[in-house]
């Protein structure tokens, strides 16, 4: 029988093969109408390839739906390279194989990656191909996009840490290429370098960690390093160092404190790239790596050894969540808000994983799996919601840009003497707008788009609701699980330190409510702030398809919750049948809203309620009071958005909330400076790296080059001395021969 696993190899291979093909075809057919039109400069190929990958992934996943036990199938495909090493005087041969490892976590991520890649490919057909800036270089985008997808899909499927690392680096490379897609802009090339180098710091640690792991186990295969006997045989202290190093790698990739500085800058890439890499897939790589450390923590042989490392993971998550949410408060760039939101939400997952690892390491297996499942579920929800949010922001930016082009053109044509910047509905600040420096991503240029872009506004609202954790929508289920897990950990004996991350997460939930709502209301509510915003129409083809799809998926979070997604992904103990959905939803509801009989149930219930209150009422209400507002006269939003807009204007009218004290405080100032991290890092670079580089340069010039030059100079000098002996006269040569012979005789005589 043909099984999906036989074809699973094609999932990463197809995009890798398509990558050079698109580049080649793009260079050959560049500029031809058919290539631009029907082939979308390679976009069609990319979409088909990714669509095939999605189909294969779904085929693969079907086998896992309804699986009662978590079966893990390992497909060893072949040896990649083998070598011999001398160990203790014996020749030992090693081989590094390539194979696939499938379990519930990897198929879940496989689905997330291929599904989002497919939708983003469709989105790009609309977004990239209708922008004249990208003309004749879209093939580069699509090719790199595919290579990136191959990296993510391959990483998820890899059955050992070495291949995981290789695909991880492919993603790093593609991230660099795609962020620097507009390489002619200095800011873009700077951002690309920054992202590459910052993640590189983490990657070095990861590599060191993997080498230590290899030293311990003599293999990097999952099946070997996770084997209970093998874990029991190694030294816990060394293993902890290896795990710590690998965690630092994950911190770099997932943009967590203190290696978070690259993510906001990475928004310089085209929006599909932001959606794909910096929200939906690549940043999940770090989470996946940490999730793959679970067996080490869960091993009974290591019980209690790694609690501090788990605590560190949770703390890093807590700090990042809080810090990123704080910085997101003041961002004016719509994509930057989403970037910080991404950091913050990923940090939630890190804390959830930290709690899960802590529980696993202290022997609370059941609750550990629950926390682990909740983290993975949040990863799923966040990827879907954030992918959608980024695409929606891309839609806004694209249309803004489009209208701005028209308006600017109109201006230069007709009002040479006038200063009226644009059309008839000149808003408050429209007069002085300098069109050459118009920022299509700045939210202060938007406003009132709810009626003009209904699909985008709906998608944005649903996505924000999922991120905020509004009850019953996607992210709610998982977020509650993570916060609950963190609190439970802090209440378990020995876990008091977990209280810090738990509190930070609770506060951040409210902050998330504020900054996501702020973004929505600034963009979609109120009156248009610029004539450009007034002229926006939703018209680009292809863009609505992914938005609508993801809106449905995000709203359907409740169904996934009912399917006991949390149990399914963690240990496979879930019966996913449609008949069970309703009872599943019922039990999830009960779990979330009613105090359970378990230990500390009342407090956990209180925490849950508090989270709901601050994240769905306090946060958004504050945002409404500051940024809400009625739409322009005559404009009507869709009914499901209209109430939101009018509610916001009512809240704003009734509460004259003045935040100028906050807005002008030193705190806001340092938030605008991103809490000075960039400045500190730059200063550190200047203090440490630059002198070190200078020292290296000196060493290179004087020691290495000096040695070479010395040899060269010395031999020249020496040869010019020796050359004088070459007189050309036969008699001198005879003399030399005679003296030489004499010398030889003397020597022989002397020795004898």
């Amino acid at each position, binding site marked *: 029988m043909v099984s999906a696993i036989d074809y699973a190899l094609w999932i990463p291979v197809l995009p890798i093969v398509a990558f050079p093909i698109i580049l080649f075809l793009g260079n050959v057919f560049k500029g031809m109408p058919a290539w631009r039109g029907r082939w979308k400069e390679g976009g069609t190929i990319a979409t088909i390839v990714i669509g095939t990958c999605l189909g294969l992934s779904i085929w693969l996943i079907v086998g896992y739906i309804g699986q009662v036990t978590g079966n893990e199938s390992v497909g060893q495909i072949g040896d990649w390279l083998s070598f011999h090493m001398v160990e203790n005087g014996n020749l030992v041969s090693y081989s590094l194989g390539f194979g696939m490892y499938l379990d519930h976590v990897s198929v879940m991520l496989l689905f997330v990656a291929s599904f989002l890649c497919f939708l983003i490919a469709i989105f790009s057909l609309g977004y990239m191909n209708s922008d004249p800036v990208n003309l004749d270089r879209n093939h580069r985008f699509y090719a790199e996009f595919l290579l990136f997808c191959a990296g993510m899909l391959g990483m998820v499927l890899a059955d050992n840490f070495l291949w995981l690392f290789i695909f991880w680096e492919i993603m790093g490379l593609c991230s660099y290429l795609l962020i620097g897609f507009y390489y002619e802009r200095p800011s873009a090339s700077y951002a690309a370098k920054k992202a590459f180098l910052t993640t590189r710091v983490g990657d070095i640690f990861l590599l060191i960690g993997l080498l230590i792991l290899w030293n311990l186990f003599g293999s990097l295969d999952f099946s070997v390093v996770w084997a209970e006997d093998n874990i029991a045989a190694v030294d816990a202290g060394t293993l902890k160092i290896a795990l710590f190093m690998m965690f630092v790698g994950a911190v770099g990739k997932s943009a967590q404190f203190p290696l978070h500085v690259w993510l906001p800058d990475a928004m310089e890439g085209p929006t599909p790239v932001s959606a794909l890499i910096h929200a939906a897939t690549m940043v999940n790589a770090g989470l996946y790596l940490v999730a793959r450390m679970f067996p080490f923590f869960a091993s009974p042989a290591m019980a209690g050894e790694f609690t501090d490392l788990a605590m560190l993971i949770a703390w890093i998550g807590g700090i990042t969540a809080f810090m990123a949410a704080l910085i997101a408060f003041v961002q004016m760039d719509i994509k930057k808000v989403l970037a910080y939101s991404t950091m913050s939400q990923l940090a939630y997952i890190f804390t959830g994983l930290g709690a899960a690892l802590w529980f696993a390491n202290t022997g609370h297996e059941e609750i550990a799996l629950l926390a682990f499942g909740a983290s993975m579920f949040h990863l799923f929800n966040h990827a879907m919601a954030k992918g959608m949010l980024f695409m929606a922001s891309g839609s806004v930016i694209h249309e803004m840009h489009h209208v701005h082009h028209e308006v600017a053109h109109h201006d230069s044509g007709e009002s040479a003497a006038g200063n009226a910047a644009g059309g008839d509905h000149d808003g408050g600040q429209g007069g002085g707008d300098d069109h050459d420096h118009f920022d299509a991503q700045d939210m202060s240029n938007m406003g009132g788009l709810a009626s003009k872009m209904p699909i985008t506004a709906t998608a944005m609202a649903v996505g924000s609701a999922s991120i905020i954790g509004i009850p019953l929508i996607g992210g709610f289920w998982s977020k509650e699980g993570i916060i609950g897990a963190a609190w439970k950990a802090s209440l378990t004996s020995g876990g008091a330190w977990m209280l810090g991350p738990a509190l930070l997460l609770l506060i951040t939930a409210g902050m998330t409510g504020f900054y996501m709502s702020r973004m929505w209301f600034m963009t979609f509510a109120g009156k248009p702030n610029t004539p450009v915003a007034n002229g926006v129409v939703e018209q680009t083809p292809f863009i609505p398809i992914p938005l609508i799809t993801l809106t449905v998926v995000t709203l359907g979070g409740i169904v996934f919750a009912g399917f006991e997604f949390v149990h399914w992904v963690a240990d496979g103990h879930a019966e996913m049948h449609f008949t069970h959905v309703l009872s599943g939803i019922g039990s999830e509801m009960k779990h979330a809203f009613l105090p359970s009989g378990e230990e500390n149930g009342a407090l956990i219930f209180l925490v849950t309620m508090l989270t709901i209150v601050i994240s769905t009422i306090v946060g958004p209400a504050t945002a409404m009071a500051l940024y809400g507002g009625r739409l322009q006269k005559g404009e009507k939003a869709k009914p499901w958005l209209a109430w939101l807009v009018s509610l916001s204007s009512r809240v704003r009218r009734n509460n004259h909330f003045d935040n100028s004290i906050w807005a002008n405080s030193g705190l806001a100032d340092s938030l605008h400076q991103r809490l000075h991290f960039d400045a500190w890092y730059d200063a550190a670079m200047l203090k440490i790296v630059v002198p070190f580089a200078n020292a290296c340069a000196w060493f290179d010039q004087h020691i290495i080059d000096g040695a070479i030059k010395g040899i060269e100079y010395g031999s020249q000098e020496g040869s010019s001395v020796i050359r004088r002996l*070459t*007189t*050309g*006269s*036969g*008699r001198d*040569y*005879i*003399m030399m021969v*005679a003296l030489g012979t004499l010398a030889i005789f003397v020597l022989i005589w002397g020795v004898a």
Partner: protein
Amino acid sequence: MIDPMWAVVLGICLFTIGLWGAVTRKNAIIVLMCIEIILNAVNLNFVAAAAQHGDVTGWVYTVFAIAIAAAEVAIGLAIFLSFYGHNETISLDEMELLKH
């Protein structure tokens, strides 16, 4: 019978004289003559050694050496003639093509 040792001492003297002449003199013909002296010093050694050991091999070698020396002189003189035809001199100071 004379002690072969004296023959060896004479050979050394002849060799030294020949080497001295070959290294110091300018005139190619004199140098050629000095080389003959060196060859004959060697021949003397051969003869002495043959007498010492009562072995005819040394005499046979001597005969060969004399024949080859004659041939060598013929070739050497031919080279000098040819050189003289080109350069109007046979001074060894002018023969420094090896330098280049």
